């Protein structure tokens, strides 16, 4: 295995894992800082806008909305934080409050769509980070263009 192949075989999974954990961090790891920050802000803002609109109980629901939750899991750290928040909220509720609907269907639907789309967008970000890690020349070219004032 050449150094180039060895480097790519380590960098690709690390970039993918970092991109899953925190959106855009995979790109920052590859040296594409501005691109990473744009992705971080966009994906994170989309996810938490969804949670704010629908409420965490109705939006991040692995029991009633399994497929949507699968999409949300692609945002990694955001979903973990939202799930922990949901568990804390659930612990504070009385049995009667637990039986009541978590939210009206309209904001809940919007929230689920926002968070689900944020997850699927981050899947695209993860795949892009992995693909760029496997093509170091393309990353170097992007970096050079950025430092040349094209950022």
């Amino acid at each position: 295995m050449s150094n180039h192949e060895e480097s790519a075989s380590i960098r690709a999974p690390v970039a993918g894992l970092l991109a899953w954990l925190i959106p855009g961090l995979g790109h920052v790891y590859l040296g594409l800082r501005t691109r990473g920050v744009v992705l971080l802000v966009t994906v994170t803002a989309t996810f938490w806008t969804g949670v704010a609109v629908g409420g965490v109980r109705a939006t991040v629901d692995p029991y009633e909305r399994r497929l949507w939750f699968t999409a949300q899991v692609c945002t990694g750290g955001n979903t973990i934080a939202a799930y922990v928040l949901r568990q804390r909220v659930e612990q504070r509720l009385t049995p009667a409050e637990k039986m009541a609907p978590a939210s009206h269907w309209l904001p809940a639907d919007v929230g689920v769509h926002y968070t689900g789309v944020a997850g699927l967008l981050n899947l695209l970000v993860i795949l892009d980070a992995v693909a760029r890690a496997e093509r170091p020349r393309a990353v170097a070219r992007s970096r050079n263009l950025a430092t040349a004032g094209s950022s």
Partner: protein
Amino acid sequence: MNGLMLALFTSSIDLTGAQRFLLMFPLCLSIAVVYKTTRCETLRELPGAVLLLWVTIVVGMFAVGLGFWVLFTSLV
């Protein structure tokens, strides 16, 4: 402050149908930003490309909606 922030994410916001419709625009913008950030060679060309894609998505969705509406009204 922490309580206010917590309340923002724990309880839902009441929405009307029109407000739900308007929330389509920022979601389409997010899709356009992420897609173009992964595709553009340089970030300098990003704002123009994002705007073009965002308009394309919104106009495309309106066109599809209008098409279905015309089909529905002509059949019913």
